[in-house]
């Protein structure tokens, strides 16, 4: 199997203090750039707000680098850690 089964799905993970506007902010950036949200879940783990979002960049108007920059900026504004990673990282680690 080649690692380059190049799907265009990415995982956005958000960690930090819960506050108004997190989902709106993240999904706003995705919608603006035509990135489709496939799945979204959130919980509080050990007192830390955690949101995980799976998105499809197939029709995206921007590349992963630019998305990462935009999310990083948003993270700074909201005081949160936002990480965007290609889904292969999780597929390789958790699926055989």
């Amino acid at each position, binding site marked *: 199997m080649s690692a*380059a089964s190049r799907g265009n799905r990415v995982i956005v993970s958000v960690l930090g203090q819960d506050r108004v506007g997190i989902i709106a902010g993240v999904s706003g950036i995705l919608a603006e750039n035509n990135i489709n949200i496939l*799945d979204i879940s959130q919980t509080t783990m050990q007192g830390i707000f*955690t949101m995980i979002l799976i998105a499809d960049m197939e029709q995206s108007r921007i590349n992963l680098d630019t998305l990462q920059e935009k999310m990083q900026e948003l993270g700074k504004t909201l005081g949160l850690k936002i990480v965007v990673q290609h889904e292969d*990282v999780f597929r*390789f*680690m958790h699926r055989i």
Partner: protein
Amino acid sequence: MFTLQEIMETVTMIQEEHLDIRTITMGISLRDCADADPKAACRKIYDKITRLADRLVTVGEELEREYGVPIVNKRISVTPISLVAEAARAEDYFDFALTLDRAAAAVGVNFIGGFSALVHKGLTPGDACLLASIPRALAETERVCASVNVATTKAGINMDAVGRMGEIIKQTAELTADRDGLGCAKLVVFANVPEDNPFMAGAFHGVGEPECVINTGVSGPGVVKRAVEKAGPAADLGTLAEIIKKTAFKITRMGELIGREAASRLQVPFGIVDLSLAPTPAVGDSVAEILEAMGLERCGAHGTTAALALLNDAVKKGGAMASSYVGGLSGAFIPVSEDAGMIRAVEKGALTLEKLEALTCVCSVGLDMIAVPGNTSAETIAAIIADEAAIGVVNQKTTAVRIIPAPGKKIGDYVEFGGLLGRAPVMPVNTFSAGSFIHRGGRIPAPIQSLRN
């Protein structure tokens, strides 16, 4: 799709537990660069390295961003220079080292390995010339790493070469005295050296390797330590082994992913993943701390060898399942200066040179990044190398010595290298002489274990 827990596990490993890819190393064959004219040979070497490794760093950085996994080092290993330079009419091989250094700088890698010779059964004129060039090469270049293989299970131990390496290590330390003997941190003496090791300072591109290849080395002592801590003090050792195995599987999968992807983007074959637990001086990224989390008051206490044997074996079992091709050194590293827990154990008197030697029977690689007093004799260093080589040869495993006789320093002083090489307390050595034994020279024959056909 993935569960929240799975995603968080991966994110936590990277963000908090120092999971990273320690190195992607491009192996490059320089066999076609030999030339009677040393200047022509050097030109060919420079051109070939800069051509093949041109995009190595760019691709590495691209993968880091895409997958969100840090790739700490991008490096290059080349055919042992003794083989490439031998055809050249040159008095010494310093210019070859300089060429490697320049090529490494040009493509932006921090280390290039392969200023090496394989002399386990004897020296050719090219090998002798390379050995003689090592001290100056390491003193006057920044990125070049040297290694010499002095023994194999099949050939036995070349004690003449062992004796010579004692002298070379002393000279290298003296030429870099202003930097605490830094040159010695870039010089490894091996027994049973692997030809596809991606880790410095001992990496070179073996003669059985293809034209160009990508090998990766993963790291993740912090992740394993956290998993052991989470298991709690009541978990028995079988349970711990199982937990470490599963963790090692996950860590190694990252190496497999990055290695395959890097190879495919650079359009070269993917070689191996090295299943090593490589510590860094960062807090929480320590192999010693895993052993302590397993229940030892300090690394080096009685029981440390057993604990390390369990750890090393579990890492290999988990890792072997995670990768299609495993190679290199593949074992837990115990470099003193690069591991905060090891340094602490030495400072507290828990960990000695003798215990470290015992540990090398059950793990990779050997006496690694150990500082000893500056007045340690070349014969004593040679004898330390001989002991390690004997362990490797008899047990059919790789062993190595990377030792720094720190100029002007005595027991309790520190050497400071900074960065990944860290800092090390100067450790006592046995002060009784092995001089007459070393001066006998000759070869220690291959052990009976070598007769396997």
